[in-house]
């Protein structure tokens, strides 16, 4: 008996991680908040730790209207020009 596979036939995408930063001292931070209830507060607290311990500066606060959808590409392109690294995460 032959059964067809019920899985997608899409080839797996090759995803690669961005190279790790050599040092975060003095770098520019962006924050991408997802609109959830405590997201902005939580991410600001995290960013404050980088400021305190590594002399970073917070440059950009970007928002997503929809927590569960990918960030719009124009948001990411804009933020990438202004910061060295980005903090994001859920904030319920």
């Amino acid at each position: 008996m032959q059964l067809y596979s019920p899985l997608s036939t899409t080839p797996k995408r090759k995803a690669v991680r961005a190279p790790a930063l050599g040092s975060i001292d003095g770098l520019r931070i962006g924050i991408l908040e997802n609109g959830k209830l405590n997201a902005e507060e939580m991410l600001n607290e995290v960013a404050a730790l980088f400021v305190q311990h590594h002399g970073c500066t917070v440059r950009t606060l970007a928002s997503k209207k929809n927590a569960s959808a990918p960030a719009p590409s124009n948001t990411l392109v804009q933020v990438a020009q202004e910061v060295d690294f980005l903090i994001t995460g859920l904030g319920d």
Partner: protein
Amino acid sequence: MSTTASFRTHEVPDDLLAAIDYCYDQGWTDGLPVVPPVVDRVKAMLAADSRPADTVIARHPATGLDLSLHAAAVNAVMAGCLPEYFPVVVAAFEAMDKPDFNFHGSTASTGGSAPLVIVSGPYADEIGMNADVNLFGPGNRANGTIGRATRLILRNVFQMLPGISDKSTQGNPGKYSFCIAERARGNPWPPLCEAQGYPKGTSSVTVYAGGGFCNVENHGGNTPEQILSSVADAMANYGCITLGQAVVILAPEHMQIVAGAGWTREKAQAYLFTQAKRSVDGMKSVGKYRDREYDTQHGEGAHALAEAGFMHRGLTPDDILITMGGGDAGGHSCFIPSWSRGRGSIMQHSAIRAPDK
């Protein structure tokens, strides 16, 4: 069909029970046994759509995984669908593929919604769907297996796996199957497919990320205001109220009272929007008030019925889908809350491509 030759197959012993166990072993089921997707049954399912088997009908926005007609057919067989149900499954995913439905978010979320599939128009009767007694099941093969095929595709094709990529806090019984037909018999209002603008004779599928099921019992009310106020109260309970949309299925007894008094769908929508609300102070008392949401509802472009000092359910009366379904007896309507807290998923619809006769 030569186009199916390139799709991956698994060779299993000629033993049906062993094949069912094989499907379990592969992790292809929703926990219930599936019909093994043997080649002939898949080909028969594919014959219900005239397009090539490798036609892509939906794509996962986060992972890029594609849903081909072939994969949809395999899962439809596994769910127990007959070939004539397949156009409904296909239309459901063509609707879910529209970006505003956001099927990744609504499936992955802790909110635990399930895609409610509502079939409107003559095709529902042609394939023997149930719009009557025991509307939400169990008991009807078409309703049960079309809803189940939707889930199996989310699981197997899009890899929305419980506990891994589907992080629903409590799940939802609709995640096994959540599919109904709009009742045409005795329905005084235009069918949804007509209201959605499809040509006469064209049926439609509406998909909605439903966060559960709330029975609305009212056997004593005998005016539209009494019936709809009990529906509105369910829509605005503190556990459910958000800026999200709503689906309301009126029982025939309730519809007789509402439409019998001359109320149109639009008038009922406006009444429900007006009544389904909580005060700002009340929302604050349970910790659910947010300035951002109030501004969305009351700021520029606010609907004229949005009352200052209150949070309504949804943004406009059009956010409330109302139709009729269920058996003749009983004052039991229902309200289906939307997924989670807001506008993350907006209901969508698509035409059903009925096969040539």
